[in-house]
């Protein structure tokens, strides 16, 4: 591969690649505002200036060049730290701050603002501006983001985002000169479903998320890599929390899945992990029609003796799971049914789904399949069909014991009625719903951000979600509940971590052959066979 030299470090590049992009691949960040790898190059912020002392032909560039718009060339020698560049950056910083309000103390971007960072790193620290700063009027631009144009540094990433990424063209650049501004077109609210990304790519606090406004200082947030479980795309995210409270989800770059983006529905799903009055936090058993709190041991003992009383035939035990369960949970549920009851009647809702395929790839992030692990359920061999015919057939026979995981088939009252006839319904989940009304035993599980697991997305990519916040004391992750249940029933299940469960899947299932948490990593990996 051809090579150029940045501050004497050899950097390889693809022909046609810009200096800034090649440097980034090599782990060197050249400061910039307007450049974004997903967007067209405009070279207007002038922050990414470098001194090209040899353009590859022995001649120096006549002046400082913007590394975002200059093609790398074989043998190029570039300096990014010399006096000329330092001075160049300093003057750009000065110009950027001439009209910036410096309202960091009340700005949500503070702490993750590149204007702040670069000002600290590359600015002079002085301000010689003696005149009133430019002030723009307040504008309401829609439901998801706020626009505070006084802070704008006119990088036009937002404008390019709606033109090039979503194709919705809601944003525009207005006026000119020092009155230049970004805005939506006359009184048209933002309508696209990806507005949150504009807050992400805005390098300053001009566009920020309404949801996050004045909620938390960014530097207090602890970030955990995870995935969004709002649909089968499985956008890579970071869960950001402080003191065990989730404040927001932010997309995490993964070129194979969501690139840099995620949809607003996914972002807003962080709300599900706040205080939830509907959640049950202790194991419960039904005594004379009323749910009574119990300890885990008590409930397992009771369950064991009740199952012994019922002594069901294999075809009298069913399990129903939704598609929000992880691969490990589905695997263990299936294992329990097989090992303890010799049954294979484990059902999941298999629904037809679709996604928008347009000229803009971002549109395909939103699918109609609003569950994260449908493909995992298929790969693990669970039973399902589009009109639930098999399930209804199974339920039409005598069912003594039913295990419910999550909140499956909640749209179909017929299934609920059919299943209500079962002698024992064991519910594993987090919230009260119409299943818990019928259930005899409630086992409190944990939410998506409280446990770890793997999910298989619509493109058969297995991805990991991690523990971001501490779960309530009496709850247990579903994989642990199922493991202990198997052990209580006298069968072998020696798993101490979900990692071990996933390795067992890798050892026993051809689709997952040889996969481990480590091989899945932060960016996921495809099923070994589909």
């Amino acid at each position, binding site marked *: 591969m051809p090579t150029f030299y940045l501050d004497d470090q050899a950097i390889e590049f693809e022909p046609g690649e810009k200096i800034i992009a090649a440097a980034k691949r090599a782990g060197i960040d050249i400061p910039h505002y307007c450049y974004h790898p997903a967007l067209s190059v405009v070279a207007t912020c002038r922050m990414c200036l470098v001194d090209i002392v040899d353009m590859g032909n022995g001649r120096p560039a006549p002046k400082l060049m913007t590394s975002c718009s200059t093609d790398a060339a074989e043998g190029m020698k570039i300096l990014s730290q010399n006096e000329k560049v330092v001075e160049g950056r300093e003057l*750009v910083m000065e*110009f950027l701050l001439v009209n910036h309000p410096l309202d960091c103390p009340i700005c949500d971007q503070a702490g993750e603002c590149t204007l702040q960072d670069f000002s600290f790193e590359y600015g002079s620290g002085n301000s010689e501006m003696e005149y009133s700063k430019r002030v723009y009027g307040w504008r309401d631009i829609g439901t998801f983001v706020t626009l505070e144009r006084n802070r704008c540094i*006119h990088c036009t990433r937002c404008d390019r985002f709606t033109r090039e990424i979503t194709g919705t063209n809601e944003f525009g650049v207005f006026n000119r000169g*020092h009155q230049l501004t970004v805005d939506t077109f006359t009184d048209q609210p933002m309508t696209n479903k990806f507005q949150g990304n504009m807050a992400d790519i805005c390098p300053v606090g001009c566009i920020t998320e309404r949801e996050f406004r004045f909620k938390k200082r960014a530097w207090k947030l602890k970030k955990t890599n995870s995935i969004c479980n709002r649909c089968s795309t499985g956008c890579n995210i970071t869960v950001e929390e402080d003191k065990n409270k989730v404040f927001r989800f932010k997309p995490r770059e993964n070129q194979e899945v969501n690139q840099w983006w995620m949809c607003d529905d996914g972002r807003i799903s962080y709300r599900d992990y706040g205080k939830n009055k509907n959640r049950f936090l202790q194991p419960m058993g039904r005594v004379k029609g009323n749910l009574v709190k119990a300890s885990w041991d008590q409930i397992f003992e009771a369950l064991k003796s009740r199952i012994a009383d019922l002594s069901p035939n294999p075809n009298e035990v069913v399990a129903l799971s939704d598609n929000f369960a992880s691969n490990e949970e589905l695997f263990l549920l299936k294992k329990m049914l097989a090992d303890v009851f010799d049954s294979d009647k484990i059902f999941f809702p298999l629904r037809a789904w679709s996604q928008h395929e347009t000229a803009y790839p971002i549109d395909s992030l939103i699918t109609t399949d609003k569950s994260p692990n449908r493909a995992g359920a298929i790969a693990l061999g669970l039973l399902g069909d589009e009109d639930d015919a098999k399930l209804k057939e199974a339920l039409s026979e005598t069912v003594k014991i039913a295990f419910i995981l999550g909140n499956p088939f909640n749209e179909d009252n017929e299934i609920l009625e059919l299943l209500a006839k079962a002698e024992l319904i064991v519910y594993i989940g987090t919230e009260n719903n119409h299943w818990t009304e019928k259930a005899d035993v409630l086992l409190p599980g944990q939410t998506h951000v409280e446990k770890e697991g793997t999910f298989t997305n619509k493109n058969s990519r297995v991805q990991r979600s991690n523990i971001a916040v501490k779960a309530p004391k009496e709850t247990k992750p579903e994989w642990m509940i199922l493991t202990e249940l198997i052990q209580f029933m006298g069968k072998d299940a020696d798993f101490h971590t979900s990692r071990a469960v996933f390795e067992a899947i890798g050892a026993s299932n051809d689709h997952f052959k040889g996969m481990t948490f480590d091989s899945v990593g932060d960016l996921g990996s495809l099923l070994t066979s589909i």
Partner: protein
Amino acid sequence: MLEETLVLFKNVRQPGYSGDLASYQSSGGYSALKKALKMKPEEIVNTVKESNLRGRGGAGFPTGLKWSFMAKGTGKPSYLVINADEGEPGTFKDREIMLKEPHMFLEGYMIGCYAIGCHHGYIYVRGEFVPAMQRLQEAIDECYQSGLLGDKIAGSDFKLDITLHPGAGAYICGEETALLDSLEGRRGQPRTKPPFPAVAGFNGCPTSVNNVETLMNVPSIINDGAEAFKELGPPNNAGTHLVSLSGHVNNPGVYELKMGVNLKDIIYDIGGGILGGKELKGVIPGGSSTPVLRPDEIDIPYDFDSLAKAKSMMGSSAIIVFNEDTDVVKFLYRIVKFYNHESCGQCTPCREGTNWSRLMLRQFVQQQGTPQQLKRLYRVGGNMMGTTLCPLGDACAMPLRAFLEKYPEEFQAHFAEAS
């Protein structure tokens, strides 16, 4: 006594010349086109290259070289777009051409189109030039009626259409890539280069953008040959050019002069001296964006290279003369205010720098300047130099720096009393 050298304006200076097709043809017009259509396109490009014709729009880039840079074999149409967005303060020569001699320009344009294989030409005219546009459109219509434009131009097999496109009043659209954006119907602001227009210009096709006066030179080059053209000026600065002379002179106007004549002679012989018999204070030699010259610096040849040697520019050959009564600070304030108003705003140093400079200068105009501010003004001006995406930042910074360097006493006179 310096006099005009008439090549471009040889007809215009004839009494009673109307500039319509019949009168142009009766004085030998469109003979160069007929000659050119019998030549190979490359021959024309080479002849123009040999003639050393340099662009008259301001940058002085060799025209033949520009044409030869056009990407070939792309499968896309090529375009020759005319920049008639004459906006540089002090320049008014293209307007004169369009009003008085549109056909010589059109002839040159047609030859240019033939040379680079352009079948649809666009003329981007400054929006304020309404009479010039009307006159040019009449000339284009005349050409269509007489078969000089259309499917078979002048009886050849070459097809050529010309569309006149009015601008909407932005100075920045005189920058070639901003002009192309505007022509495409987008917001007119300069693009980042590369790619250069010769590779991806109008609608992403290879494009050459030329000035009106530049192409007006082409018919005489084709008719009389490259050598004859070269003889009209010093080496590397060939031909005659139209000089817009304005300000405090007795005879302002557009004059056709050989390259390399003495600047002082232009002002005193052609311009008839300083208005009202006053003392000369300074000369802006190439439009408001070029560095000013003091009276003792103007005894130099007026061409691209000599002015570059004097650390100024010939730009679009627009000489602005000002006399001893001029308040240099107010003058500069007006210039900077213009560039501040016309900055497109996309890139940082120009957007913020032009405004900041204007605010500081306003304080001087209000007699509130300080020595510290004078230093700062000079520094901010320097920070705009060479750091912007397009030359507008330089266009503001060059006069700013030059005025501060050459007339420091004038600025000191605008300090606040206390300091």
